[in-house]
């Protein structure tokens, strides 16, 4: 490296301008590919302009629907998806070595056309339809009219729930997400171990079909009755696998056409022919090289997303791609490590490029800046409990610092035998301001999976992030296809309803039970008892709704492709979304959680212990949204105990609340008969719910951003330093008190410079591990940089922040979310 270059790099490091450093250090290919991406995530809650919705497939979708209208749901779905795959335009980005997209072009997101609510959303959203606008509006309108005459998922499903439950769920006050869809769990142990690929699975399916066909024309008996439907399902799975192979071969042909007719650079020609060979091989047959392995994985992810929206991206790339990496880079030296990093970088960029039509305001506002919470899991242990970290773990982290995508992000499974080099790489990513990896405590979470869901240890050890936080095995009976996090609670409403006797003044509905006029409460236990009732009601309702959604999913939105890559579906002929054969891995996500213990502590201290205020006075203030009560409000903010300060007063209340929920989590069951533990975390739900949650006793006004989630202290309210935060969190039992607990921390980039900074951070992490916490994630970016980015966003396009369970480019989130992140306490360690 030239001296001038070293000096330049050093200057960027001094100024924490990691994005310029990345641009200089990454290869020309990665630089091009990274810059060729059109943003797909919602920017500040709105689709990123100038991204457009492509309407070219709406007629084809209708044509296929009409053709296959009377087939059983799974088979119809397969034929329609296969028909679209056969005709959807494909493209290969210049300089790409990996291919496959769910879009028809780099700057559009395909809309297949629906009626109902999503039709209105597409119709009403500004700046998303292609010109000429009048023509696009006419198409959307006519397509909507057609689909409104067909039976929609909503129409089919809406009457399945208890009407009161679903009305309250859809009020927008207490829930997040839909009770169907969002499935993304993958049975990696079935299709990613190198033992089989699509042709092998087709062979297995053919055997099942042959056996079932023989049975269905044999002597009549009850046992053969289910086989009639399952034959259709197997056929559907086979249709999808064959369609996937054909689709990949289209890319192979395209690469060959470009190479032979349009490419004059011999090196690029060779690359394109290699792309062609790769796509001829995978996904039909198991991968043999790193390029084939990554391409195989990517094809599967895209096929799954073309089939249906997937809200997350569970993956363990350093574990499942390690055999091919080891062979290509270490053993046979077929490619250099730098060439491998180019492939890995492109693999991440391809994922970042995946776009979708937002499902609704809750999605685009709760997930600002991204298209889904894609958390890839690195490190950890293998099924035998041995360290699974390897050179590919390092390569992924090094590559992340070069490509600087905000999605996917990583989570690193730490365990006591992790070697120092992996911690260093993890720290470097954080220091470079990526906001990831988050760090997970592997022994704690394996024990947690065994405790709550009864996963055997070997299966628990295979775990990946189901979405942002919750571990899920990747095994035949352990994989849960669905996030089940649409049992997502706007938890702050639990305490709000204590003070409104269950009435919601924002959505104007009697939501929760009438737990008594709060003005008449004479002691704290009455308040707490009312809180428990509101909590049990809310969680019970959400779980009932999601359970019904899961129960009905295969009827209303079947998944033939996801089933085709899942062992228990290939074996049984059932849709993968059917609960039969699954052990269960559900959890209730608790957004806006810490407001509960903070508010309860404030009431206990200032009303009942110190008797400084009466319940009447507090209720008056809350009803007025604290207007005219500013001095009182500040008392509740500053002088009531707050979580995160190692204060037993409030910490005991936090633990008590969590244990009440944990108790209930064992009483309620998912469709597999398994438990529903609680998992406090957030995405940008704290902003999305800001004007939905009313005034609270922690001093919050309606409209103020809620806390940033999980068990993170309120921004600026943790005043005793980082160890105090950890000690508070350590009073929770991270195995038995819930599923997992998100902790955001913000660190100083200046304090944590150099080797000294790393040692400080390592010491912090030792305390974290000793206290038995399961999760922590970091922002390491200064207020100066963030304020400068607010002022001149064009100059700071590449600054990334950890929002909550995901990262986003700072300029892509709303001002309110930006301010909320800036408010978070910078911990000096």
């Amino acid at each position, binding site marked *: 490296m030239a001296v001038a270059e070293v000096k330049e790099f050093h200057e960027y490091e001094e100024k924490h301008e990691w994005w310029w450093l990345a641009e200089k250090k990454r290869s020309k290919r990665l630089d091009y590919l990274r810059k060729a991406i059109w943003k797909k995530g919602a920017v*500040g809650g709105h689709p990123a302009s100038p991204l457009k919705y492509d309407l070219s497939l709406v007629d084809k979708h209708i044509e296929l629907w009409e053709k296959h209208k009377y087939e059983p749901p799974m088979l119809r779905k397969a034929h329609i998806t296969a028909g679209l795959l056969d005709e959807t335009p494909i493209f290969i980005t210049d300089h790409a070595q990996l291919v496959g997209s769910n879009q028809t072009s780099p700057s559009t997101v395909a809309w297949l056309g629906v009626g109902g609510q999503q039709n209105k959303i597409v119709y009403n959203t500004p700046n998303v339809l292609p010109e000429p606008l009048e023509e696009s509006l006419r198409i959307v309108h006519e397509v909507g009219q057609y689909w409104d005459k067909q039976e929609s998922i909503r129409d089919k499903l809406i009457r399945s729930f208890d009407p009161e439950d679903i009305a309250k769920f859809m009020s927008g006050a207490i829930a997040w997400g839909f009770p169907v869809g969002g499935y993304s769990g993958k049975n990696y142990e079935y299709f990613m171990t190198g033992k089989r690929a699509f042709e092998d699975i087709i062979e297995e399916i053919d055997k099942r079909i042959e056996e079932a066909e023989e049975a269905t024309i044999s002597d009549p008996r009850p046992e053969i009755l289910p086989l009639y439907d399952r034959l259709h399902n197997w056929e559907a799975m086979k249709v999808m696998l064959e369609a996937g192979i054909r689709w990949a071969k289209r890319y192979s042909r395209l690469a060959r056409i470009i190479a032979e007719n349009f490419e004059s650079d011999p090196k690029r020609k060779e690359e394109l022919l290699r792309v062609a060979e790769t796509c001829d091989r995978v996904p039909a047959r198991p991968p043999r090289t790193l390029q084939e392995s990554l391409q195989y994985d990517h094809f599967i992810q895209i096929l799954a997303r073309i089939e249906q929206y997937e809200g997350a991206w569970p993956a363990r790339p350093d574990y499942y791609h390690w055999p091919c990496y080891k062979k290509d880079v270490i053993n046979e030296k077929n490619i250099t490590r730098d060439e491998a990093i180019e492939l890995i970088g492109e693999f991440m960029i391809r994922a970042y490029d995946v776009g979708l039509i937002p499902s609704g305001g809750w999605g685009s506002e709760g997930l600002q800046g991204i298209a889904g919470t894609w958390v890839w899991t690195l490190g950890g242990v293998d099924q035998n409990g041995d360290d699974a970290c390897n050179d590919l773990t390092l390569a992924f982290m090094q590559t992340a610092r070069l490509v600087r995508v905000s999605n996917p992000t990583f989570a690193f499974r730490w365990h006591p035998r992790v070697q120092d080099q992996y911690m260093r790489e993890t720290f470097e990513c954080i220091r470079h301001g990526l906001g990831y990896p988050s760090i997970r405590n592997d022994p704690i979470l394996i024990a947690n999976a065994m405790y709550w869901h009864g996963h055997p240890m070997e299966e628990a050890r295979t775990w990946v992030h189901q979405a942002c936080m919750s571990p899920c095995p990747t095994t035949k009976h352990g994989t849960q296809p669905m996030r089940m996090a649409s049992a997502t609670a706007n938890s702050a409403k639990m305490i709000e309803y204590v003070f409104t006797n269950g009435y919601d003044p924002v959505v104007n509905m009697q939501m929760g039970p009438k737990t008594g006029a709060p003005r008449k409460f004479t002691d704290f236990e009455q308040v707490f008892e009312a809180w428990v009732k509101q909590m049990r009601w809310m969680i019970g309702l959400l779980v009932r709704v999601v359970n019904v959604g899961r129960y009905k999913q295969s009827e209303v939105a079947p998944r033939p492709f996801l089933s085709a890559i899942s062992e228990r579906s290939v074996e049984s002929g059932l849709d993968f979304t059917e609960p039969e054969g699954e052990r269960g891995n559900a959890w209730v996500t608790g957004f806006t959680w810490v407001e509960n213990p903070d508010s309860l502590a404030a009431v206990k201290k200032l009303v009942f212990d110190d008797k400084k205020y009466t319940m009447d006075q507090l209720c008056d203030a809350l009803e007025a949204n604290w207007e005219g009560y500013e001095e009182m409000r500040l008392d509740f903010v500053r002088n009531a105990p707050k979580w995160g300060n190692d204060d037993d007063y409030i910490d005991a209340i936090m633990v008590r609340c969590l244990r009440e929920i944990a108790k209930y989590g064992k009483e309620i069951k998912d469709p597999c008969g398994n438990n529903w533990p609680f998992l406090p975390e957030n995405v940008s739900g704290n902003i999305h719910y800001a004007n939905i949650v009313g005034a609270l006793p922690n001093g919050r006004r309606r409209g103020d951003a809620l806390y940033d989630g999980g068990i993170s202290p309120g921004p600026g309210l943790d005043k005793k330093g980082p160890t105090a935060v950890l000690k508070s969190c350590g009073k929770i039992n991270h195995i038995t008190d819930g599923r997992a607990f998100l902790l955001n921390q913000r660190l100083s980039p200046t304090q944590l410079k150099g080797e000294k900074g790393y040692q400080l951070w390592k010491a912090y992490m030792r305390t974290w591990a000793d206290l038995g916490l399961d999760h922590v994630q970091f922002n390491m970016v200064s207020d100066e940089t963030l304020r400068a980015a607010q002022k001149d966003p064009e100059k700071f396009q590449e600054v990334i922040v950890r929002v909550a369970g995901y990262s986003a480019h700072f300029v892509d989130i709303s001002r309110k979310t930006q301010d909320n992140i800036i408010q978070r306490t910078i911990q000096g360690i």
Partner: protein
Amino acid sequence: MSRRDQWNQVRDSIAGVGVKKEQTLEEREKMPQKACGICKNFSENAYVHDGRGSCSVLKVGSNIDQDPLVLVTEGETGLITQFNTDGVRCPYFLKMDFIDTSNEECSDPAFRRSHRQMEKL
């Protein structure tokens, strides 16, 4: 009326089930000067991001489209209406104050999603 029947009504209005689905392009494009979407009493809902919201004054059973008006102000559930429902005859219409700001802000108090048709106001 049984509990289920009562809540069937509410569910249908929130989810748009049974609501007249066939609208003309012109009906979809309209943006009345006194639309519910710009009334202070209109609360939005990210679950019905298509433009529905609830009224904090009128309750389920009200109808501000028909003549004579049906105004129900007692009950436990707010009336579900659309952002571009014409509130010209509604006695409770209270126009919100507009702030000229970028439509990329979200979830501030009294935030209104900027539906495309609102550009006509």
